[in-house]
């Protein structure tokens, strides 16, 4: 139970970091961390189907697509 609350706290910190960071690559990695922790929490809530989809799409593919888009534009936010 303490582990779950620790994960939720980490998720909140990562979500805030994703909106605060000026370096967009770091922000994308923080957003992928939010997805990864969400998938672990889905597993603890006994929804392994959703956890799999969240880990594969939210953490891997979305982050990759964002990073490709950032490479095409600029890396730092003004």
């Amino acid at each position, binding site marked *: 139970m303490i582990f779950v609350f620790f994960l939720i706290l980490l998720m909140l910190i990562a979500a805030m970091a994703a909106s605060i960071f000026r370096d967009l690559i770091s922000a994308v990695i923080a957003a992928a961390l939010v997805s990864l922790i969400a998938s672990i929490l889905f597993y603890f809530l006994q929804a*392994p*189907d959703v956890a*799999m*989809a969240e880990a*594969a*799409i939210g953490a*891997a*593919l979305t982050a*990759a*697509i964002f990073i*490709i*888009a950032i*490479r*095409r534009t600029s890396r730092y936010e003004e």
Partner: protein
Amino acid sequence: MRRIVAILLLIIVALGISLSLAKIPFGTPKTKVGRHYINEGVKETGAANIVTSVVLSYRGFDTLGEVTVLFIAAIGLGAVLTGATEKKARKTEPASLVLYTGCRLLFPLILIFGSYIFIHGHLTPGGGFQGGAIIASGFLLIYLGCRERRISRKASKLTESLGGLLFVVTGLLGLAFGGYFLSNFLPKGTANELFSAGIIPIIYIAIGFKVGSELASIIDNLIEES
């Protein structure tokens, strides 16, 4: 000033949501239809995984709509990116030996794991969408590690179309034999065996191929154009 107003509004919204949801007990079955799925789902559809029996049997038509949404998104992305300017030859650093060998060794294992997930969708957690996403992440690994390898666009289009066609044809066969679209006309067999649950494994294999090739072609389009 505006920031303070925004924070106050957020606090009010959070209070409202938490107060209105506080009285509802968490995780108790309330609807009759949910109880019916849990008690009778395995008997009626033959699939040991109840989520799969809901997604593909009770709500199979919605899944067809979901697959169509993903298809339209991939088509739209391809249409937007085809009009881009002609690409210049970009110089790319070759990947290091460790990364190259690791990607080449991991890729078939990821493919096998993804196909395991969608072939066993009616027995274990997972299914066509999850397995397809895992296969697409394997293709992403190949694109990052072994830069000179590319999937053929024609083959990915063909796989995608055949997957969608298999889904719709299975549904129409259900209409012919069972009386309604996507009816389970094959024998259901005993639950917990690989060859059980009638048309559910066939449809999940079709969805797995379709989603995998669609997501891989999205990544392929983006990497080629960037």
